[in-house]
């Protein structure tokens, strides 16, 4: 259980525990994107404080409150109705923002934040107005996706103008061990108009089988031959990328790198020279699963044994029965034991002549799998 959770709350069930752990998990790169801005503000204010010679007073837990309205629709009626401390707040808020922008841009070295377009929109816009001639982008011009070779999903969501570009540092440049950076993406400047595509021979394969990642390297539209391309792999529940293989492009600029045994879901990226990267290719694996029906004594209680490979103890297996209309209905579920197996007791009297199958539910490590179908014989 997460250490942040209070003891008085008592033990949590697994789902709730996982939720709490996720809520308090290590920060993403996007959440730390404003670090330089904050540091610039701190530097500027530290200097001002020295000049003003401020003293230290204890914090009594109260603040000048100018909040009278709940945030969420339907509202929290417990927000204290305190009168506004500033009758006209608009200019003051802008004053804060302008001060922040001036702070950021006045401090040497922190203009990089504006160039990197990691400032909040209003500040970024002010920076653009003042320093746009020098290449500072406008807030509205930030393109989270960045380069043409960035996967289309990388920055297509609304409301993430700052986080996406900084979320993809190159291997070895991660700012923390818990981050899960993708292995860098190409930019036209770094890659010199090189483009690297990637595709998998199968986006969902049987666990334990091989997968080949095909790539095509071009420079200014022409195939690039004889260039080494690395295949980077990030498997499920691992927060780092590793080199899974390497190959030189052929005369057509093509490359095909094979991973001989893939046991879990994985993401792949091809990395070429000059920092060029392919879009991310995800390959899901389905663990093989088999169902075997063993008639019980008198044919009354049969035993359905389910066996899997590459699944984990505790993974959920669902027993399904086929209805007359052809739909599959869930009967019950069991957890896999340490050997990757589980059993279901079948009441043949109720399920005689029915078709059964077992389904291994998907987890972050693997996709779902469906077993063979077995028929329940009628009791003798």
């Amino acid at each position, binding site marked *: 259980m*997460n250490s942040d959770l*209070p003891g*008085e*709350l008592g033990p949590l*069930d*697994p*789902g*709730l525990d996982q*939720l709490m752990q*996720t*809520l308090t998990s290590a920060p*993403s790169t*996007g*959440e730390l994107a404003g*670090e330089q801005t*904050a*540091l610039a503000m701190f530097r*500027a*204010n530290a200097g001002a404080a020295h000049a003003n010679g*401020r*003293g*230290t007073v204890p914090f009594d*837990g109260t*603040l000048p*409150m*100018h*909040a009278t*309205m709940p*945030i969420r629709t339907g*509202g*929290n009626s*417990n927000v204290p109705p305190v009168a506004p401390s500033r009758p006209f*707040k608009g200019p003051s*808020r802008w004053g804060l*923002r302008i001060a922040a922008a001036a702070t950021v841009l006045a401090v040497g070295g922190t203009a990089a934040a504006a160039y990197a377009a990691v400032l909040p*929109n209003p*500040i970024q816009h002010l920076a653009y107005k003042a320093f746009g001639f020098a290449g500072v982008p406008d807030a509205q011009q930030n393109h989270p996706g960045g380069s043409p070779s960035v996967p289309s999903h990388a920055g297509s969501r*609304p*409301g*993430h103008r700052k986080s996406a570009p900084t979320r993809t540092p190159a291997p070895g440049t991660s700012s923390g061990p818990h981050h*899960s950076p*993708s292995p860098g993406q190409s930019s036209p400047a770094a890659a010199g108009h090189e483009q690297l595509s990637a595709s998998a021979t199968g986006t969902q394969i049987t666990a334990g089988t091989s997968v080949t990642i095909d790539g095509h390297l071009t420079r200014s539209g022409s195939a690039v031959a004889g260039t080494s391309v690395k295949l980077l792999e*990030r498997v499920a*529940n691992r927060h780092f990328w590793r080199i899974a293989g390497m190959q030189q492009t052929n005369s057509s600029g093509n490359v095909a790198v094979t991973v001989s045994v893939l046991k879990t*879901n994985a993401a792949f990226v091809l990395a070429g020279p000059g920092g060029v990267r392919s879009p*991310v290719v*995800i390959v899901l694996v389905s663990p093989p699963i088999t169902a075997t029906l063993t008639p019980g004594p008198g044919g009354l209680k049969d035993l359905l044994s389910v066996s899997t490979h590459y699944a984990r103890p505790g*993974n959920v297996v669902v027993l399904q029965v086929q209805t007359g209309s052809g*739909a*599959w*209905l*869930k*009967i*019950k*579920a069991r957890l896999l034991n340490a050997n990757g197996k589980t059993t279901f007791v079948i*009441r043949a009297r*109720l399920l005689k002549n029915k078709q059964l199958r077992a389904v291994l539910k998907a*987890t*972050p490590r693997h996709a779902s*799998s469906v077993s063979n179908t077995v028929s329940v014989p009628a009791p003798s």
Partner: protein
Amino acid sequence: MLDEALARASAGDEAGFLQLWRALQPRLLRFLRVIGCDDPDDIASETWLQVVRDIRKFSGGEQEFRRWLFTIGRHRAIDAARARSRRPIAQTTVGLDIFADSQMVEDQVLDGLSVRGAIAMLARLSPDQAEAVALRVIAGLETPHVAQILGKSPGAVRVALHRGLKALAEDPAVIALAGKPGYSSGPPAGPGGAPGTSASGHGLQTLEEVD
């Protein structure tokens, strides 16, 4: 744990401030998202602006600093909501941001539950429960401090916490996180339909009773 960093930051040490910021900024953003803030990055930036302006006047430990930070953040968010209501603008994306995810698709696949997904689950609670749980769990505040921020009694906060956690524990999406048997999600399956989905909850119940 952050007491030393706090002391250094109060003395003007940049490394101490950065340690504070790195530890608390993500949690501040998550808290702001839970309470429905439209632009958490902007509000967090304003919050830290006030912190760096007044940190020299601050004295207290880590818990007091957390309480101070999240109090400022909460007030800034409420101010922003009030300002927005004064100057309503057509924003088709209001409220949708919480469902967007900064994680890339491959990370969602590989990591399972994302932070944004977890925040969305928490935000489905009633406002007072969501805020209490967020301040207690995400902000890491002790119950009396949560009570002070919310203007409630500690007992009322404990009740909100328990009810909120109970509601979360009964949320089918949370149950599914644990892969609990008996839960089936997704659309109804047709003939040969998607694995792991049942054609109807009612049918499932009936069959379970039969077996």
